């Protein structure tokens, strides 16, 4: 350890505010980027599932589309 105590690590002989600001912004911004990417994916999946659910309910004949129907389900976004 380059510092004698936890306090010394935080103060860093007066340079603490500069160093910790940088590391704080670094983790904050990259964290936001990850959170935003995850949210984008979740939203897309949720919307798509809803659309397909509606489609399935509207035409019960195609409910088992995974079970070997040749019908291609075309969803359109209006």
């Amino acid at each position, binding site marked *: 350890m380059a510092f004698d105590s936890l306090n010394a690590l935080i103060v860093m002989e007066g340079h603490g505010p500069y160093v910790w600001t*940088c590391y704080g912004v670094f983790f904050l911004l990259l964290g936001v980027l990850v959170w935003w*990417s995850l949210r984008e994916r979740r939203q897309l999946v949720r919307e798509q599932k809803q659309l397909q659910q509606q489609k399935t309910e509207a035409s019960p004949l195609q409910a088992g589309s995974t079970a070997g129907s040749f019908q291609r*389900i075309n969803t359109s976004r209006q």
Partner: protein
Amino acid sequence: MWQFFHKLGSPKWFYGIAGRFMPWLLGIGLLLALSGIVWGLGFAPKDYLQGNSYRIIFIHVPTAFLAQSVYLMMAVAGVVTLVWKMKLADVFVKAVAPVGAALTFLALFTGAVWGQPTWGTWWIWDARLTSMLILLFLYLGVMALGSAIADEKSAARAVAVLVLVGVVNIPIIKYSVNWWNTLHQPATFKLTEKPTMPPEMWVPLLLVVVGLYLWFGWIALYRMQTEVLRRERRSRWVQDLMHPGGRSDVSSGGARADGV
């Protein structure tokens, strides 16, 4: 080789293979980067001249380094878009531009905070700082241009051209400190020479650089998967993947897309 190239054009194949790499990239990347940061912050010796403020280098250099290589990767993808019209290349550019912008901003921000106590100013219009600011504008321009054009194909072409025009900035950033008098000092890490610091300083720095690269690999693949799902949402394999009540490891970018 050509088979691989051809396969890369298949979004479904990409989705599955990306999911297989992602956990490794994220796990090893975080491990390396975090251990490098802890080492750099708490255990590396202080600098004889700057004292502890130099510890900002452990995130300043990796973000600046990665910001430039991400742009180079985008330029390669831009050529692929224009010449081979491979959609996945455009997906890459679209997915990583915000990541590149964030990294460039971080490099500028940490540099400014570091400059305040060491140089005596947080900003100066020297060649290195100005060219890095232009890189940030290029990233923002790529993002804006991509979303301004609705037609996917013309958007891909326009963005690729902008990326390629902007690539002249990269050698300017890299060599600005050698070509002109700047306040910014020359590079600490060079590929051909020994680093200008002792191992107990450059090893943690290298750990963060490699770790951040791997982390970038993860977030790039994750964001590309999302974009692929969005573009292919009318295709059969995506609809099967998202079948109501079906298996839903889609959000985590599950590896089993090809097993549906």
